[in-house]
């Protein structure tokens, strides 16, 4: 059974995707953020463009920083954004 994940975007990730979030039905067999990105890139050209270089992206699961190889398990919200530049 697929699970639903809310994906939120910030900064140039949001601008280049042209939206601030997606609700994605995540098929079985996709367990890590990296796998999810590959799945999305297969689905839509804009994802291929914006997610092409994962070195330039950072991720948070339920508001905690994680790496590309993190599994999302029961997480409800994935955030994808560039490195932070506050302060």
């Amino acid at each position, binding site marked *: 059974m697929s699970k639903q994940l809310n994906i939120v975007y910030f900064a140039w990730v949001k601008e280049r995707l042209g939206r601030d979030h997606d609700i994605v039905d995540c098929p079985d067999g996709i367990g890590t953020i990296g796998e999810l990105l590959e799945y999305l890139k297969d689905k839509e050209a804009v994802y291929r463009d914006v997610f092409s270089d994962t070195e330039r992206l950072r991720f*948070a699961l339920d508001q905690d920083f994680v790496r590309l190889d993190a599994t999302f398990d029961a997480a409800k919200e994935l955030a994808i954004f560039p490195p932070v530049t*506050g302060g």
Partner: protein
Amino acid sequence: MIKIRILEDDFDAGSEISQLAGLGGGAVASFVGQVRGDGSLSALELEHYPAMTEKALRKIADSADQKWDLHGVTVIHRIGRLQLGEQIVLACTCSDHRQAAIEACSYIMDQLKTVAPFWKKEIMQDGTENWVEERQSDIDAASSWDH
């Protein structure tokens, strides 16, 4: 006592510092970052991740509070559009000892630069916009505390 604020409006650094000083330690260190007039810059636009921001700042403040013996920590960060010269951020710490207060303040700023979910966009005088890139010196500064 840890105080975290995320604000669109400006804040009064002096009043925040004296509130923290009122907790009674002998040493109060603070840092204020403001929009620096850098050649052709006109303003900064500060975006953040509302659901995560306060949690991330509180985690930084808690971690400072564990590393040093502090009476209090205040962290304030602004969001939205900021003009040249406007205040962006305040980190303020209060301790019995000056090195603890100053080091904790420096640590908080270094962590904030790398793990608090804020993004700066520069609005230039000619109307162009650029997202600020992360700086290696900030990454190095943050990781210098890992030992």
